[in-house]
């Protein structure tokens, strides 16, 4: 039994979305209901509008392993993490955690804007479960990791968001729980800092700690976890070795469609700065957007609503993956220098990325669409595996493949320019 750190059986969580239009129940309404129908048993009845965010989730995690939880938006990942980190109770089921638990559901938990960096290290550390003596002991290391030395006594409200993230993560990185829950915190911070954090997390895993890690980033999951659990609509789809689960994830779900649209800005992916409206694959000259001839150029079109950008310059970036979860390449709309230099206004923005023909390899290509601002890097809207399409090589002789019909490896298949000519030097060939 000592070898199992986390065991969950039949976890389920029900939310009532029927009440969404009136999220804070009104006192009068509740009193009225009680007065008019005092005998009504309200708890037990299953109601219309009940929504099961999680259903019958069971798994065991041995001590010292790192398990990734993956799934699309709304699959129940965050709900599971909230139950495990004791923020909310399961509606059904039971879980046991054997060890001191730490959870990292956001960066900078418990920060108070008015307090200085120094004060916030203590406050956040204490809220995350550290003892005062422990914080004192690690204080210098935390400051060094966050790299904000001279701003230690400045109120956090005057920090740039990058500094806040660094400080927040630094505090969290020095937690020493036996079981750690981490939610998607790596989506923030600049690239170098992300690398530092990933390094720190691998260290945590090697220290004999048990880690449950929720992420959209397949490369991070593949790199950090030996095992993964795929959730879909609240249920466990597959639980096994990471690469198998990731492959399954990439094969299923909305990653099959070549066109996505969100009609209601209120529920579209994004935040106050940017929300996605649509992501589409448009082959040049029309035709099927699901299956695309390898020779044909395609456009990936992203539309997003932007509000109050102010000084911010929202920028679209597209991440292209193949079936194995390998990132083929990433591209940003700042390649349009004219747009990049344009000051932004609220409204709808349409960004199109042109991909030449004879560039992608055969097989499925999955595109993640992101709208971010930089310095510091903040992801405002992100749809993992927003669209996908299949590139088909018909081997008609005029492609990269030419007349060669066998296996043709490579993550891209660009038609590069060649120059071949006959040398004037004569060679005598001996018999």
């Amino acid at each position, binding site marked *: 039994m000592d070898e199992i750190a986390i065991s969950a059986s039949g976890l389920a969580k029900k939310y009532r979305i029927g009440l969404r239009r009136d999220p*804070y129940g009104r006192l009068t309404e509740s009193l009225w209901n009680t007065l008019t129908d005092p005998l009504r048993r309200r708890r037990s009845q299953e109601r219309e509008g009940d929504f099961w965010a999680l259903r019958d989730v069971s798994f065991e995690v041995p001590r010292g392993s790192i398990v990734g939880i993956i799934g699309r938006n709304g699959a129940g990942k965050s709900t599971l993490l909230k139950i495990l980190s004791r*923020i909310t*109770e399961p509606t059904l089921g039971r879980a046991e955690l*054997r060890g001191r638990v730490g959870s990292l559901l956001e960066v900078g938990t*418990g920060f108070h804007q008015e307090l200085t960096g120094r004060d916030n290290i203590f406050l956040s550390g204490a809220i995350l479960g550290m003892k*005062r003596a422990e914080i004192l002991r690690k204080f210098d290391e935390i400051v060094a990791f966050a790299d904000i030395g001279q701003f230690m006594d400045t109120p956090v409200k005057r920090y740039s968001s990058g500094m806040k993230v660094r400080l927040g993560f630094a505090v969290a990185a020095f937690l020493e729980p*036996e079981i750690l829950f981490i939610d998607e915190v790596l989506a923030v911070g600049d690239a170098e800092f992300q690398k530092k954090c990933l390094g720190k997390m691998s260290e945590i895993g090697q220290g004999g700690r048990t880690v449950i890690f929720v992420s959209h980033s397949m490369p991070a999951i593949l790199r950090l976890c030996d095992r993964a659990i795929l959730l879909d609509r609240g249920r466990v789809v597959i639980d096994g070795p990471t690469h198998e689960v990731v492959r399954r994830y990439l094969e299923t779900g909305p990653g099959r469609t070549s066109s996505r649209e969100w009609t209601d800005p209120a529920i579209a992916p994004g935040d106050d700065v940017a929300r996605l409206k649509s992501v589409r694959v448009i082959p040049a000259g029309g035709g099927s957007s699901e299956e695309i001839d390898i020779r044909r150029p395609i456009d990936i079109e992203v539309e997003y609503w932007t509000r109050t950008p102010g000084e911010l310059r929202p920028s679209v970036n597209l991440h292209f993956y193949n079936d194995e979860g390998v990132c083929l390449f990433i591209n940003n709309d700042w390649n349009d220098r004219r747009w990049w230099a344009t000051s932004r206004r609220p409204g709808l923005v349409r960004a199109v990325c042109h991909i030449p023909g004879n560039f992608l390899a055969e097989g499925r290509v999955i595109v993640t669409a992101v709208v971010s601002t930089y310095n510091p890097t903040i992801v405002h809207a992100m749809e993992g595996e927003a669209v996908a399409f299949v590139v088909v090589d018909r081997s008609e002789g005029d492609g990269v493949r030419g007349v060669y019909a066998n296996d043709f490896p490579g993550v891209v298949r660009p038609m590069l320019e060649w120059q071949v000519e006959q040398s004037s030097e004569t060679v005598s060939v001996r018999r």
Partner: protein
Amino acid sequence: MVLIENPKTGSASSVWDGQVVVLEPHHGWRQLGLGEVWAHRELLYFFIWRDLKVRYKQTAFGAAWAVLQPVLLMLVFSVSLGQLPNIGPAGVPYPLFVFAGLVPWTLFASSLSGASNSMVSGEAVITKVYFPRLLLPFASVGSFLLDFTISLGALAVVMLFFGVVPSLAIVWLPALTLMAVVTAVGVGTFLSAVNVRYRDVKYVLPFLVQLWMFASPVVYTSTLIPAKWQPVFALNPMTGVVDGFRWALIGGDRPDALILVSAVASLLVLLGSLAYFRRVERTFADVI
């Protein structure tokens, strides 16, 4: 929600100290979980420290507000009500009389407001990390004890000014303060839980505090209340606190019965409120 088994001695694993956290649904009433609060007392201290540090940031007068609030009220009431016949007891200067009532009252009123809003203003942490939720209203009340201590100093100055020297009864002051704290924690914790679901509390609170002050003998002497209403009057725990304060500092008849009734009432309010809080606590993160 949490069962903490005894740490095994000499556990086989070097990392695991034998603690098991069990997560499962709860229905109905639960234990008060004060043991867990005690285990988290360091975090309680940090919350109090935060509230104190933040409270008077970016104010010109800083912690002087802790004294200014009751002093200004004292001036207002002395000018407006001080001349009325029989409003205070004979032989006690009205400003001193009213100030001795306002000091414990301010402790209660600020603590009550702070505690009632503590869950809603703690939303960010409640939805991101676990700790015993009771810490938030407790810390809110705790942070006002420092303000109270400062205003006690001001009260001493006022007493000196009027040449009043307290008797030995002053040793009851801590117990009476505790009673005010128990009442504030009781009502505040209850309201903080209601506030999570019904933000109406925010609007009701100022009226409640105002009405409650006039229902307590803060600006008038309790002898103004007819004898037949005295038992009901004493059910308000703040009646015992305020009258007790004046007795302990200025003198007069010892309000035994009043204090006893008030003390019992405050304890009952506290228990009921903690029980209610624990009952609805499990839904906080989902509802807030």
